[in-house]
């Protein structure tokens, strides 16, 4: 069941179109990464989904939203969260909880529960002004889920953290995954792979890839054979590629990469040909492209 359906979402700032028509759905219970380089439109997309920004055209339909106000269904952590520095962590959580409709008692209980979950219970009576960056990030996650929203959106939740803090937040997200739907943006593929089931790949305001991790891997993790010859690498490689259905061939200086569907078949054929013609082979390597390659390929386009 989709939690939210997005159709034809567009947004422009002055004369620059930042989001050029997005269509996607988020399924309940999934953890989805919104992946893209800086400036791809991730933050803008999340701001529109949170209601802070209004799209120029297109629709955002949340399952079960009353009169178009879907704010009770979502939790949102901005990229650079700012709090009331004069409040304590506990006060802030109770405040946001009550604003989201919890009773005094519920808000108190839920605040305490979350302070422990995110690991800042020791600092609950300290002013937020004295919190470190990592503590603020965790407080930010706690306020985003205080009212048990259907969808939690986190904008670059780990980018600004040191490796230690980043690990903690990623582990926290693992826990959250079991309770709710998560959409989080990142420019780091590793983070996306680590916690997420699905990826939405955003580039220049458009969705260039979308799907589950395994779908994307199947689609993009092509087998390739790297060949290096002592001389005439490109000529020999092209001659070889005629023998067997090669999806594409890429020559990069002294190295040729041949992308194939069936590695085993290609391997046999190529090796026989090379030995029978006694070609001056230096290197023969079988490998797979990673999502990283796909990511880089799209980004560098």
């Amino acid at each position, binding site marked *: 069941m989709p939690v939210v359906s997005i159709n034809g979402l567009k947004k422009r700032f002055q004369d620059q179109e930042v989001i050029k028509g997005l269509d996607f759905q988020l399924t309940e219970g999934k953890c989805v990464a919104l992946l893209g380089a800086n400036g791809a439109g991730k933050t803008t997309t999340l701001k529109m989904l949170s209601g802070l920004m209004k799209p120029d055209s297109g629709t955002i339909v949340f399952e079960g939203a009353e009169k178009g106000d879907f704010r009770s269904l979502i939790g949102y952590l901005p990229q650079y969260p*700012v709090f*009331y*520095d004069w409040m304590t962590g506990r006060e802030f959580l109770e405040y946001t909880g009550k604003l989201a409709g919890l009773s005094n008692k519920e808000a108190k209980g839920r605040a305490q529960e979350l302070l422990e979950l995110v690991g800042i219970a020791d600092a609950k009576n300290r002013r937020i*002004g*004295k919190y470190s960056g990592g503590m603020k990030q965790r407080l930010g996650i706690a306020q985003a889920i205080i009212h048990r929203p259907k969808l939690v959106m986190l904008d670059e939740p780990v980018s600004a953290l040191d490796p230690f803090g980043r690990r903690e937040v990623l582990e926290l997200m693992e826990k959250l995954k079991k309770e709710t739907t998560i959409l989080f943006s990142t420019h780091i593929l590793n983070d996306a792979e680590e916690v997420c089931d699905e990826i939405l790949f955003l580039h220049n305001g458009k969705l260039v890839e979308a799907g589950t991790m395994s779908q994307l891997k199947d689609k993009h993790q092509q087998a390739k054979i790297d060949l290096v010859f002592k001389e005439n690498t490109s000529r020999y490689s092209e001659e070889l590629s005629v023998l067997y259905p090669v999806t594409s061939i890429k020559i990069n200086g002294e190295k040729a990469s041949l992308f194939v569907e069936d590695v085993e078949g290609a391997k046999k054929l190529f090796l026989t040909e090379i030995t029978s013609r006694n070609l001056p082979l230096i290197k023969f390597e079988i490998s797979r492209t990673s999502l990283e390659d796909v990511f880089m390929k799209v980004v560098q386009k």
Partner: protein
Amino acid sequence: MEILEGINWAILAPIVIIQLILMVVAIFDLVRIEKTDGPKWVWALVILFINLLGPIMYFIFGRRSY
């Protein structure tokens, strides 16, 4: 100094006390607060030496509110 005799101190005292409270509260806050807009020592001078207006200027312009 005979002019001072004409002044009823019971009437003037509250004003002096209020100014003093403002100054003390401002200094107390200045010491405890993490950051101010502008260097702290300048605000200390402003609070202590600009009569009446000093503490008020500090509260309005010196405190970072968020």
